[in-house]
């Protein structure tokens, strides 16, 4: 008797845009037995509740809503005959690529994989992490939970709304709830700049005259049973509330849109350490983690600005996983990528094969007219700048990309460190 119930060449965990794209790419690179495991009863992931427009411009060259984008990908999955196990939870993944799952239909199963692609996406940071003083009434939701109530369950969580945090989901929900008849009083953002896309500031707030208070935060929550109001205060440059700036705002609903965090329980469960900045696994140019044959892509690796970018990254992982199971390997390299803090992180963090690599990076603050320099520090102590690029403006909300060609990196000896810095 085999020690497992099923065996597949490539198993993708998560059926959102990244998972579906990874599975499609692996299949298109000649692997016929690909499995997607999804815990919901349908493919699509978070896109199923993102009914607004703005998806697909990169991938499909037309503007789609989230469900349309998801359905297009699901059609491609179906056309290829890629197997899916829906309503199935992954309990554990081991380093020798055994996956334990549970579902009502099949009970507990063990699945053996040639390669595993993590595509579990991310979840919202919760209010607990914010430790706001005051009572704990009902009426406080994460923006994503509110989005689910309105768009999937079909009911409104409240009427008088304050939104804390100007992340994109919060902005999208400001518009959504306004259109459904709620009164969104204001959005407050603790940082001096918004974390959301410019188009969302314009079309979700300005279109409806919803004020955005920068450098403000909620400092107290009021109400017994149901939320009755919040105190908001201005904050100084170190994000501490300034005494005397408090104002009371009556509301029955507080939405929190304070950021997303990769959902990495399975990753850490099999002993893969996380990067402090991305909160995802450290990966090479193929999105392979330190465990050979285990890959990560999409929002479980680092939070992307657009589903299109998550899908694009997933294609890299899917293609590489297919090459691995087919036994195709390139010329090895050993280059590490480091950052100066102004550049907050890069993905990938290392280059293990000589090939053209696009490096994605995010900065830690708003910088006007910065210049990115990539400096190679060779093991013999020599340093040289291999790339510089000027920008008009860089901001934390926008992921940037630079291409490192094989010609550029192929010459570098093993043990080289590439430092990404702004000046």
């Amino acid at each position, binding site marked *: 008797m085999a020690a497992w119930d099923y065996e597949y060449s490539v198993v993708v965990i998560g059926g959102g845009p990244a998972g579906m794209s990874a599975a499609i790419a692996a299949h298109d690179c000649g692997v016929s037995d690909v499995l997607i495991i999804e815990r919901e009863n*349908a493919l699509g992931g978070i896109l199923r509740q993102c*009914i607004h*427009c703005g998806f697909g411009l990169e991938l499909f060259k037309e503007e789609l809503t989230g469900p349309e984008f998801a*359905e297009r990908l699901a059609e491609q999955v179906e056309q290829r005959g890629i197997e899916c196990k*829906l309503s199935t939870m992954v309990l554990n993944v081991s380093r020798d690529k055994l996956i334990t799952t549970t579902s009502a239909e099949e009970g507990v199963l063990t699945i053996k994989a040639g390669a595993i692609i993590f595509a579990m996406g991310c979840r919202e940071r919760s209010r607990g992490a914010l430790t706001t003083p005051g009572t704990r009434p009902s009426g406080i939701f994460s923006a994503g939970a509110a989005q689910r109530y309105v768009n999937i369950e*079909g009911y409104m969580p409240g009427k008088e709304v304050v939104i804390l945090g100007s992340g994109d989901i919060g902005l999208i929900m400001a518009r959504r709830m306004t*259109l*459904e008849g709620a009164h969104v009083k204001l959005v407050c953002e603790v940082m001096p700049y918004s974390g959301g*896309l410019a188009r969302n500031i314009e079309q979700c707030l300005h279109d409806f005259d919803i004020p955005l208070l920068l450098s403000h935060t909620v400092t107290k929550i009021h109400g017994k049973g149901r939320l009755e109001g919040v105190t908001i205060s201005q904050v100084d440059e170190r994000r501490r509330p300034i005494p005397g700036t408090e104002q009371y705002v009556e509301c029955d609903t507080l939405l929190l849109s304070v950021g997303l965090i990769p959902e990495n329980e399975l990753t850490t469960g099999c002993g893969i350490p996380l990067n402090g900045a991305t909160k995802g696994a450290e990966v090479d140019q193929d999105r392979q983690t330190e465990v050979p044959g285990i890959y990560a892509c999409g929002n479980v690796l680092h939070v992307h600005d657009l589903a299109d970018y998550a899908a694009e990254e997933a294609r890299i992982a899917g293609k590489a996983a297919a090459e691995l199971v087919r036994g195709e390997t390139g010329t090895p390299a050993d280059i590490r990528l480091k950052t100066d803090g102004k550049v907050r992180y890069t993905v990938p963090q290392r280059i293990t094969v000589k090939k053209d690599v696009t490096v994605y990076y995010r900065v830690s603050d708003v910088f006007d007219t910065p210049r990115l320099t990539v400096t190679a520090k060779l093991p013999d102590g020599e340093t040289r700048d291999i790339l510089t690029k000027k920008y008009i403006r860089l901001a934390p909300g926008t992921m940037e990309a630079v291409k490192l060609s094989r010609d550029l990196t192929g010459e570098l000896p093993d043990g080289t460190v590439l430092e990404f810095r702004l000046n």
Partner: protein
Amino acid sequence: MNRKIICIICPRSCEIDAEIAADGSVTVSGFGCQRGKRYAESECINPVRTVTSTVCVEGHAPLPVRTDKPVPKAKMFECMKAIAKVKALPPDLHMGDVILEDICGTGANLIAAAGRMRNGN
């Protein structure tokens, strides 16, 4: 009248200055490219938005819908009212099926933005 418009077409987010003359003609400056110029002009003359929402029909999960082209911004709430009035859906619904023709006289159709994937079907 002068207006500042933040261009949303690309991440550069140019601040475009628009001057609307008494005769309604618009002059814009500060755009980084022609696409931004066109966007700023349309924002002054006839701003349009795609409306997305859900249709809630008894016995069905909410159905995501959208207008198949942008409608005048001023008609967004009227469209929402029309969407709320939809009380029946065609059987065997597919993505892209028309739910309301020429919604609120905008020339846009309201279409289903999801089909069989809805709630696992």
